[in-house]
């Protein structure tokens, strides 16, 4: 399960922000444009999402806080997910797994699993067959709920094969 997410410099989250989740259902609410979908995208991004379209970006740099009328831009976006692994669902010898992703304006990226540097590929491999990988059924973006109905029969099949 997801214990908490720490977001800093990612999209509209200029300052370091922590969100702790309930084991059952956590609701995220707020006005239009407040940053709710940005939280969902931060989680996706930390899980290794690379498609700029899915993150509503034109370029990779768009995920870094670009400043507002009250605040300066920042140079880096960082998101950390803290997962509970006491049931050893993930094949790693830790009770808790922290996945961290950083991106700098220079275009450089850094990835960590429990503070050890790793490659994006390692994060992808950790998530294979969990429903949280790419095309996973476990993350539904805004406006995407009925997308599965419009896909081709072949696409529907591979969507279900990911779950099988």
């Amino acid at each position, binding site marked *: 399960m997801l214990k908490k997410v720490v977001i800093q410099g990612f999209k509209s989250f*200029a300052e370091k922000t*922590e969100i702790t989740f309930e084991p*059952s*259902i956590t609701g*995220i609410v707020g006005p239009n444009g407040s940053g*709710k979908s940005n939280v969902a995208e931060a989680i996706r991004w930390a899980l290794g999402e690379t498609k700029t379209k899915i993150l509503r970006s034109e370029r990779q740099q768009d995920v870094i806080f670009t400043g507002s009328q009250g605040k300066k831009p920042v140079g880096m976006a960082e998101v950390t997910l803290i997962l509970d692994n006491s049931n050893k669902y993930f094949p790693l010898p830790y009770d808790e797994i922290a996945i961290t992703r950083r991106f700098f304006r220079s275009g450089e990226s850094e990835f960590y699993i429990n503070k050890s540097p790793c490659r994006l590929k390692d994060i992808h491999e950790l998530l294979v067959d969990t429903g949280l990988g790419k095309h996973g059924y476990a993350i539904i*973006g805004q406006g995407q709920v009925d997308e599965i109905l*419009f896909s081709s029969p072949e*696409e529907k099949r591979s969507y279900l094969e990911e*779950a099988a």
Partner: protein
Amino acid sequence: MEQRFDEFLKLLNEEFDLVFKDLFGGGRASLEKVVGGEQKEGIEIIVELPGKKRQSLGLLSGGERALTSIALLFALFNLKPSPFCVLDEIDAALDEANVQRFSAYLKKIGERNQVVLITHRRGSMEVCTKLIGISMQDGCSKVLSLPMENIKAG
């Protein structure tokens, strides 16, 4: 490999039909194997809404499509829970009565799955164990935890 998928499909088919009946108060739904373009294996979603005839998914209304997708999604969660899921406004197209059915079923899903739900709908907020409020100040997002009583009362 193919056999394992076939077994999964059989189970999913039954689950999808059960959840569909629960959310729509009747009707039926199934997943059928088809051969697509270039002899490729594919899956088709077939639904029949209560009182109506089976129709191509494209003719369904916005709310009916959303609820059909939700039925398939919940069927998947029932058979194969993921470590957690993130759902961003999947209830947007539902009318008030359907939000009630959706949230009632979501509460059951929450017993075996961890759910992070972004929503504007009161009915959905009421089945959350905790509400996190996001607000924008000086162009920067801030977080505050909201007591559930606020929502239940007001």
